[in-house]
């Protein structure tokens, strides 16, 4: 297990290099930041001086090495919008994003596990049809649309929830539902099909022939097996979570990394964009690693070598 972990951690290094390169190239191609930094009436020689001072006149690879060198020290440069170092600015927003992500995962799991299991147990019943149809709908619904709909319904028409912002648990409910619904829909579908497959396995028949009751059959023998795919499914949802968070945070003005990134992109605050993208990518890698480890703990058939 330890050896496996070390191996996986070592594998992260080249991945990080690729990400750093992609992030750098994106910004390199995004255009001249100097135009935005100086007042409109600055002269061409002022701009030239600014570029030289920022090292923008150096060749591409020198700029890249400088970028990586800074990156290793956690230095992504200064946000000219906030006039602060970019990385702390991004890290500051992490708790808010974590909070939203966790809340939506909880919402999604609470919805998907019972619905998925129930619809598998009642395969082809009316309820099953309803749940399956609902999950298709839930998956097709864009985050911004659902978010705005929820705001209209529950913050404007019936004023039970605040329109935006972060603070109490009440603030969290609408954004978490917005972000959680699509994930729940996907999870429900996968849990259902998984459960159906598992309930047809020989070992379920064996357990039944021992006299195991149908509830224990489902919640112990089958569910324990379906946990493996469920964890994988949850891991796979992380990318949805990231892209969904960008939109959901913008819709609800939720002060997380997503909102920061969207604002930074709009304001061409490149240091912040780089730091945010890098941190998000790192998070995705770490979550995938954790998923993989849980998966291994759950499935005794996988060995760690």
């Amino acid at each position: 297990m330890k050896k496996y972990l070390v191996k996986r951690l070592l594998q992260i290094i080249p991945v990080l290099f690729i990400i750093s390169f992609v992030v750098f190239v994106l910004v390199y191609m995004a255009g001249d930041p100097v135009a935005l930094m100086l007042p409109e009436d600055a002269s061409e020689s002022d701009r030239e001086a600014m570029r030289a001072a920022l090292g923008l006149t150096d060749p591409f690879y020198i700029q890249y090495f400088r970028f990586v060198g800074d990156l290793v020290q956690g230095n992504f440069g200064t946000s000219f919008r906030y006039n602060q170092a970019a990385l702390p600015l991004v890290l500051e927003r992490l708790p808010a994003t974590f909070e939203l992500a966790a809340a939506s995962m909880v919402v999604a799991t609470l919805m998907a596990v019972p619905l998925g299991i129930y619809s598998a147990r009642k395969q082809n019943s009316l309820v099953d049809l309803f749940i399956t149809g609902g999950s298709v709908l839930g998956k097709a619904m864009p985050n911004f649309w659902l978010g705005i709909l929820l705001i209209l319904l529950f913050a404007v028409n019936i004023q039970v929830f605040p329109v935006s912002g972060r603070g109490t648990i009440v603030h969290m409910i609408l954004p978490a539902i917005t972000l959680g619904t699509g994930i729940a829909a996907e999870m429900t579908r996968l849990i259902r099909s998984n459960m159906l497959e598992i309930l047809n396995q020989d070992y379920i028949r064996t357990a039944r022939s021992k006299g195991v009751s149908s509830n224990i059959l489902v919640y112990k023998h089958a569910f324990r097996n379906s946990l493996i795919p469920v964890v994988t499914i949850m891991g796979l949802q992380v990318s949805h979570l990231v892209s969904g968070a960008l939109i959901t945070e913008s819709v609800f003005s939720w002060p997380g990394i997503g909102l920061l990134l969207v604002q930074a992109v709009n304001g061409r605050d490149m240091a912040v964009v780089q730091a945010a993208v890098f941190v998000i990518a790192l998070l995705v890698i770490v979550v995938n690693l954790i998923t993989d480890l849980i998966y291994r703990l759950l499935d005794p058939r996988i060995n760690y070598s």
Partner: protein
Amino acid sequence: MTENLLEVKNLHTHFFTENGVIPSVNGVSFSVKKGEVIGIVGESGCGKSVTSLSILQLINKPGKIVEGEIRFHEKDLTTFSEKEIRKIRGNKISMIFQEPLTSLNPVFTIGHQISEAIRLHQDVDKKEAKQRSISLLRKVGMANPERQYHAFPHLLSGGMRQRVMIAMALSCNPELLIADEPTTALDVTIQKQILKLMKNLSNELNTSIILITHDLGVIAEMVDRVVVMYGGEIVEENDVYSLFENPKHPYTKGLLNSTPKIHQLKEKLQSIEGNVPTPDQLPSGCNFQDRCPFAMDKCRELSPNLVASTDGSSVRCWLHQEKEVVNV
């Protein structure tokens, strides 16, 4: 040896699929006495597994027992509630299945799975269940049972897993053990060991066995009485010696064709010309007519009944209908 432990009477189990009704088992009747070992033989698809699963009410949707009785100690199991039948399963009647590789739950240790069976039916605590499981594992010939108790199924070979299945099936001293092709998936030497183990344990515990198999060699070695099935029906039933010495039904003769002597029966069922009719395409008249060398006009029009003779055998064939009709 007189009292009937189990009586299957006129069992009909059908599958109601989207493409129509599949009558997999049609009017099967047989009985098992205390301590008796009976064998069910027949080609693939003739309804052996469906019959055995029907006994414990383990037929899943879209299948259903549409008619018949399963009398166990005189009580009809088909009328039992789910809760009542659970007290029979694994306790009074237990099963061993063909596929040792997939019949154990991969995420629980074998010890846990045996203990679970024990604790479902016996009022013992965890520690006691563990002790019993370990001694069962020792009994079925597992080396180092204390350690193997904690093993996950994937670490064991097919033969070892089948030993675990046997330990589990015998954990509550069942009165009847149904073994559905328990050794088909194993290689020959392991097969022998497993069968010997089953036979010894059942002798020791006086357990009755229904042994389902393709393998006439296994039948010859293991069972007291044989039921031959074809197309969802019983076509012949007799004690093992009479059946091998003097098969009556043309299908049984075909099965035994290349294996004339009981002690030399090592081969699998000799294939008979033609295909097994699927249950949804059974002909009118005798099910075996298309493959039968003795088929007559009558066979194509009317189905023969299963007729019992005074020597305790029964056969379903127009060539043997001179005696009185006993079973339907």
